[in-house]
């Protein structure tokens, strides 16, 4: 017997209500995720953006005879507690290198102490009442100012908060990534090409495939242990070096590159392979001239994402010793170096208030690079994507 529209609508109402409820739940969870993301970014930005500015003080530097041995003699004794120790420290060396400067004096903007910096930014500080009063006076006179923090972007790590910079970590990251890319890209792509285009489909290759997929899910710290045991202890690669770190991260990136390359190769339609075989290409010519060029955008995207993942990795690098105090910008692949996440980790453990904003600032730099890399991958995919 058939039903009337009204009867059917009656039944449907409950189903519609149910789907509406599910829709709201899923939208709610999406909103929640978005909210957390916004909170995270807002927190990082509010904490980290001040790190891109730094307090400077205008002062008279008098290059006296005494200053040759004791840099403190060159400064106004009242101002001395407000000036960065790094500025004071270099005075004797500067005079020794340029003896003709002795006897002269010069008004200069110099780096202020991190306490001054924190005071000006309204954060917790340890300045005494008198120091604060003296500082306020100078601020009125326009002799103290917050300026763009070139030290942060232009120098390496330091135990003195105001002269700590991220450059040595950025350079370390770049060198480590170069090693990672040079090792994992060719090996990963060729492995995927072999598995996808040449290997017979048997138990052995299936086992390899399963193991590669599992490799991608292994906790990264285990790769660090592997790197320590094999690269450093067995092969004698220098500890803490971008070479050791890059090789370790290459192990981690390999499965990502292999899997994404295989997916890219599989998305090239067989009709292209048949066409190439049909005109008498050998298997390698088919791959080199036809399949690989078509799969390249997908391979590049996967590799960039794998690299971005490696760039944010800290745990395996702790094991190979890349959490190190590196004041000088790295010069070679075998010298000790540190990377951005490790630098952030180090700063987050510093007790001084000024390092809080350094930590957040470092996170902002890392996030910016990671987001740019991912955006580049998306653009690359959109640009070269091919529909069949």
């Amino acid at each position, binding site marked *: 017997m058939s039903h009337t529209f009204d009867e059917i609508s009656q039944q449907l109402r409950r189903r519609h209500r149910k789907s509406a409820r599910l829709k709201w739940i899923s939208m709610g969870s999406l909103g929640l995720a978005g909210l957390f993301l916004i909170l995270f970014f807002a927190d990082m930005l509010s904490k980290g953006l001040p790190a891109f500015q730094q307090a400077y003080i205008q002062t008279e530097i008098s290059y006296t005879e005494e200053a040759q041995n004791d840099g403190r003699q060159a400064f106004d004794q009242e101002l001395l507690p407000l000036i960065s120790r790094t500025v004071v420290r270099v005075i004797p060396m500067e005079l020794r290198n340029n003896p003709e400067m002795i006897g002269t004096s010069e008004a200069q903007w110099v780096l202020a102490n991190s306490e001054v910096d924190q005071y000006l930014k309204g954060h917790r500080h340890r300045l005494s009442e008198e120091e604060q009063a003296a500082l306020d006076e100078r601020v009125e006179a326009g002799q103290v100012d917050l300026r763009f923090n070139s030290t942060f972007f232009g120098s390496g790590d330091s135990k003195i908060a105001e002269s700590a910079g991220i450059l040595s970590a950025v350079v370390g990251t770049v060198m480590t990534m170069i090693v990672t890319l040079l090792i994992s890209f060719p090996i990963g792509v060729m492995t995927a090409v072999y598995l996808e285009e040449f290997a017979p489909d048997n138990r052995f290759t299936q086992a390899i495939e399963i193991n590669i997929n599992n490799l991608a899910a292994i906790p990264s710290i285990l790769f660090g242990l592997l790197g320590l045991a094999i690269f450093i202890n067995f092969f004698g690669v220098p500890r803490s070096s971008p070479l050791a770190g890059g090789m370790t991260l290459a192990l981690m990136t390999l499965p990502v590159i292999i899997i994404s390359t295989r997916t890219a190769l599989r998305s090239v339609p067989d*009709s292209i*392979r*048949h066409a190439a*075989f*049909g*005109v*008498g*290409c050998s298997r390698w010519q088919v791959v080199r001239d036809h399949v690989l060029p*078509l799969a390249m955008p997908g391979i590049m995207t996967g590799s960039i994402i794998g690299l971005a993942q490696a760039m944010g990795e800290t745990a395996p690098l702790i094991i190979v010793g890349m959490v190190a105090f590196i004041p000088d910008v790295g010069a070679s692949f075998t010298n000790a170096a540190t990377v951005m996440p490790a630098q952030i980790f180090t700063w987050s453990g510093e007790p001084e208030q000024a390092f809080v904003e350094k930590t957040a600032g470092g996170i902002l730099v890392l996030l910016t690079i990671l987001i740019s890399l991912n955006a580049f991958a998306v653009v690359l995919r959109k640009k070269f994507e*091919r529909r069949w």
Partner: protein
Amino acid sequence: MNSQAPVMNDQHAPAVGQPYTRNNQACHDLSIRVRDLNLWYGKNQALNNLNIDLFQKNVTALIGPSGCGKSTFLRCLNRMNDLIPSVRTEGLVEMDGRDVNAPKMDEVALRRRVGMVFQKPNPFPKSIYENVAYAPRMHDLVSRKAEQDELVEKALRSAGLWNEVKDKLQEPGTSLSGGQQQRLCIARAIAVQPDVILMDEPTSALDPISTATIEDLMDKLKEEFTIITVTHNMQQAARVADYTAFFHLGEIIEYNDTKVMFSTPAKKKTEDYISGRYG
């Protein structure tokens, strides 16, 4: 079977190495000789004891209902079945006195002499020029740029495509219409100067006008090449083919001069099929 029938999987075929004769005159040059060909996909036998002689500079059509093995057989002729791991082949496929399945036979060399055009037009995602020039360059058939230009023009002219594309050779091959793409694929195949061109339902993805163009083209191409085409369309076989082989369930039921086959089929099954009773 008609006494004029030149061929077949029976006593009419001359001994191996002997020419086909009609009134004691050699009348056909053999292109490919197939003897006792069997093929399995895993455990399923797809081709069953095929015997057939294919002739030079003729169009031979392979017809039959879906799944009868005609495309599989076609792919045996340039060993494209090698690409399918589960396929096992037994029997003789002889070309130019050589067994193409012999271990010593290089499949790349074979495919250079036996070109192929596929069901769906599949130009390389490169320029029209590059589509044609790629294979000759790969096989070292051309050394200078001028030679290459000449060869591309010749191949495109033979495929009847030159006038349509001569002003846009650098545009992608995939920008052409379906029928033009298929002719580009034909140009690509003939650019390496093969002896045989295999066509696997070359017009099934095309509209009637493009189909007619390709059929005319096949008629011209047979002056230079041996053409073996698979078709679902019996009218097409009747129009273009000099010889027709009727496949059914992995066997060749009948192979004969097309006119004879379509007017007086020897077997009941053939008659039923070409009169549209099944298939």
